[in-house]
């Protein structure tokens, strides 16, 4: 396999891997949402002892819901990009083979009737390359939004820990909520960072393709 084809394959694999990773993130976000609901119950039971914790639980639930929505958006974008990458790979392969035809048929009487096919293929390839680059940038923007959400989640987790420490006998249960939120946020952040690194690598590869 040529280096260029290998690079194009990496785009398909890279984007598909991002989509798969983000699907896992959704499950993490769901579990945070469930934890938030549990925390609501605990803090309701705790009553006055956890009064300042109660609004935080709603906030945690909101973060979880926003994360799920953002992740779904990014996942959809990744799936669409996987499809676009595969189409680009196919068009690129066709273009290579059309050039082989042109080379083999150099002396062919009707070679000129094939020129339009090559031109059309090149135009299609250029359009697909442009769309690929634009969609990679858009995916990167979405991932950055997700990263920002997780920074906010970590900040909330810190506040939760402080408020949990003031909740008397319910301190341990509510601390667990804070720990879970922090751990989930960090895991999601790591996944997002890996995704952004992958996009960065892919973006570089795409700009190396000459059309």
């Amino acid at each position, binding site marked *: 396999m040529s280096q260029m084809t290998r690079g194009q394959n990496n785009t398909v694999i890279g984007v598909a891997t991002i989509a798969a990773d983000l699907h896992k993130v959704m499950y993490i976000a769901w579990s945070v949402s469930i934890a938030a609901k549990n925390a609501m119950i605990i803090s309701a039971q705790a009553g006055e002892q956890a009064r300042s914790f109660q609004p935080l639980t709603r906030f945690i639930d909101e973060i979880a819901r926003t994360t799920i929505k953002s992740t779904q958006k990014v996942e959809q974008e990744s799936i669409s990009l996987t499809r676009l990458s595969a189409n680009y790979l196919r068009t690129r392969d066709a273009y290579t*083979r059309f050039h082989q*035809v*042109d080379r083999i*048929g150099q002396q*062919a*009487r009707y070679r000129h*009737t094939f020129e339009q*096919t090559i031109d059309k293929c090149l135009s299609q390839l250029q359009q697909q390359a442009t769309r690929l680059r634009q969609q990679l940038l858009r995916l990167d923007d979405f991932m950055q939004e997700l990263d920002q959400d997780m920074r906010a989640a970590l900040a909330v987790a810190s506040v939760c820990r402080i408020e949990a420490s003031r909740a008397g006998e319910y301190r341990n249960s509510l601390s667990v909520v804070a720990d879970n939120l922090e751990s989930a946020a960090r895991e999601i952040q790591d996944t997002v960072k890996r995704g952004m690194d992958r996009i960065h690598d892919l973006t570089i590869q795409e700009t190396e393709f000459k059309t």
Partner: protein
Amino acid sequence: MKTIQLYDEGHQWFAFARDPDKPEKIIDTNQYMIINNDRVLLLDPGGIEIFAPMLGSILHHTKIENITDLFASHQDPDIISSLGLWDQTLPKARLHSPWLWEGFIRHFGMDHIDYVAIPDEGSILDLGGLELQFVPAHYLHSSGNFHVYDAKSRILMCGDVGAALEPADADMYVEDFDEHIPKMELFHRRWMPSNRAKNDWISRVRDMDIDMLCPQHGRIFKGENIGKFLDWFEQLEVGIGVPK
């Protein structure tokens, strides 16, 4: 890729085969082309790996826009995996192929070419005034399968029937039939599943006026070798993949 003109009396038949640069592990195949003025039919146009040499050869004989029709005898990749490339090449064309395989063949890529489904009993293609028959050959080997008969040139393109496994530099025509048998035997015994289908095909083909029997692999049969092949094939026990 070698180009051999098989017939030239008003319309023309060409065979394309024996590509010396084909990847070693892919099976060698014969592709055919019929030219009738500005209408061209490609028969079993071949796999993706030989698309370039195939089209490079075709362009010596006809314009791209004259290729109006493709025929795929059945669904195998060595016959039609190049479809996605033809789909991007031909401005306006139709693919004639068994109705049974439409959903499968479309997996090779088909956004522009029209699929003309051939019913089990066969049909006729009018190629600019030249009548070509799609002759049923089901279960030889594929369960939906056709051959192409040109009554004018008396050529029957017979797909996998008559196929032989040979080196890429083999001759195009069978000379010594007895010497040719070992090259055909395993292919026919193992690939052809049905003795009943085989004998039905033979009885129909014996009634046809044939000067050339053109398989998709191996060599072309002419003259008395056609009768010899039918006799040999008739007595052959096929379908050996399942023990008796």
